[in-house]
């Protein structure tokens, strides 16, 4: 269970990026965080990753407070951030330094096959396309078998076709060990394709606006009417989150519900 309890973040320049953000995320759930720019999505993710400390409030995983990067929490950034001096295989094995060499090699080989890059094991990162590099980054984050995987707009730099391909691929990989996924995105389609639950945030300061459960079975058909209606619900919530006349806590809008039910 990943617990976010009234997480607050004020940057040294006085900008309040997050205000009392709370959420309980059960193990194995896929949660998408969506919201307009500057709503503190990335700030929230960095706090969960332990890369930044929250100014107030608490992030905990299975009862352990997160204050620094944690062995059971992996992260995938918007850019692949591969180490250019390591081969693809060594990049994937980067987080396995503590394991004996043969175990490490085996895990890397499995991961490489799993992301479909077995033939690229010895390639340099510069020789990969954007989609391939991001797949290596996914493999690198997954081989230490984290309980929680954080994704910070992981596919936003890719073209639409590659993005859809990687989204399916990510679900595939997720099914292996079923870690909790916490995905920051600004793409409604992506949120509805992947998530069990979409958290809509509203900006300045970033706070939770709406919590939408997507109870669609997987694999999800992007063209089905049900999919469309969920998308419309998320979009409506997003619109209302940016409308200053709508008070906080009015996220569960009658209009949005009426559209779907």
């Amino acid at each position, binding site marked *: 269970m990943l617990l976010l309890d009234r997480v607050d973040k004020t940057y040294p320049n006085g900008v309040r990026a997050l205000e009392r953000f709370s959420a309980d995320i059960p193990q194995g759930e896929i949660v998408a965080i969506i919201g307009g720019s500057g709503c503190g999505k990335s700030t929230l993710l960095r706090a969960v990753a332990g890369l930044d400390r929250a100014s107030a409030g608490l992030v905990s995983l299975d009862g352990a407070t997160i204050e620094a990067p944690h062995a059971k929490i992996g992260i995938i950034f918007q*850019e692949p951030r591969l*180490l250019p001096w390591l081969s693809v295989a060594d990049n994937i094995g980067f*987080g396995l330094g503590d394991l004996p060499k043969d175990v490490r090699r085996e895990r890397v080989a499995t991961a490489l096959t799993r992301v479909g890059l077995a033939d690229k094991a010895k390639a340099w990162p510069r020789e990969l396309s954007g989609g391939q590099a991001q797949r290596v980054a996914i493999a690198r984050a997954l081989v230490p078998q984290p309980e929680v995987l954080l994704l910070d707009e992981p596919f936003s730099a890719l073209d639409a076709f590659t993005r859809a391909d990687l989204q399916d691929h990510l679900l595939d990989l997720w099914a292996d060990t079923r870690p909790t996924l916490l995905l920051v995105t600004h793409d409604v389609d992506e949120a509805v394709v992947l998530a069990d639950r979409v958290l809509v945030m509203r900006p300045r300061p970033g706070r939770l606006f709406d919590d939408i459960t997507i109870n669609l079975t997987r694999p999800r058909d992007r063209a089905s009417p049900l999919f469309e209606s969920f998308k419309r619900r998320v979009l409506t919530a997003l619109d209302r989150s940016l409308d200053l006349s709508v008070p906080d806590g009015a996220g569960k809008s009658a209009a949005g519900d009426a559209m779907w039910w």
Partner: protein
Amino acid sequence: MTLDTTTLNAAAQAAPAATRTQWRVLKPLLGMLLPLGIALAWELAVYRGWSNGRLVPPPSRVLATIMDLARSGELTRHVVTTLTRVGAGFGLGVVAGTMFGAICGYWDVARRLFDPTVQALRAIPSIAWVPLFILWLGIFETSKITLIAVGVFFPVYLGVMGAILSVDRKIVEVGRTFRLSGAAMIRRILLPAVLPAYVVSLRVGLGLGWMFVVAAEFMGASEGLGYLLIDGQQLGKPAQIVAAIVIFAVLGKTTDWLIELATAPFLRWQDGFRAGGAA
């Protein structure tokens, strides 16, 4: 008609292919054209008596001087002396520059403490130290090696510090998410990230080392290539001066190439403007 175009195309493709192969062989030689041309022209000018070549000796006379020096064993003695001085000064300068650069790059307090002073010292032309070094350290090897080390220190120091300061924060964050310890962070992230800039600073440092060995040998030496220069000037032997200059060029280029050769295996990953391409 169709046949004709095909034949034509084939011919058109075959011709550039042949030229391209020739071109690949000829390209490295292209750089030799200008110096060799000038040398030949000058040789011819002196041979035909258009110039007596007394102040600007023709290549054959320079070569003969080098041969003479080599035969008498003097060449080896001078070259070994100069190489030893450069080697010792370069080594000391690199060790000191790397240590200070790394400390000041890694540790903010040290940078605030040392860097302003080091930058102020760097502003002094290193040759200005010569009189002081002679007073302090005598006119023998110590003062010469110190001068060379001082010359090498600054580019290496600046290179290492600048490289550490400009390591991509995003890459460092990858190390942090994998919870690398301080030592592991240095070994697995900082060191490889800094290496390309470090090699450049070593090469710049070596170039300065060669520059300062001449200055050092001007300040009173009885052997070394710099001594050959001074000796040639005082006794009016321009061929000996040019010979020493040529040997400097060969040694400088060779040592620089050795650094490049030794570090190339560690830098194959670089995504430079010529990465993977044939030069």
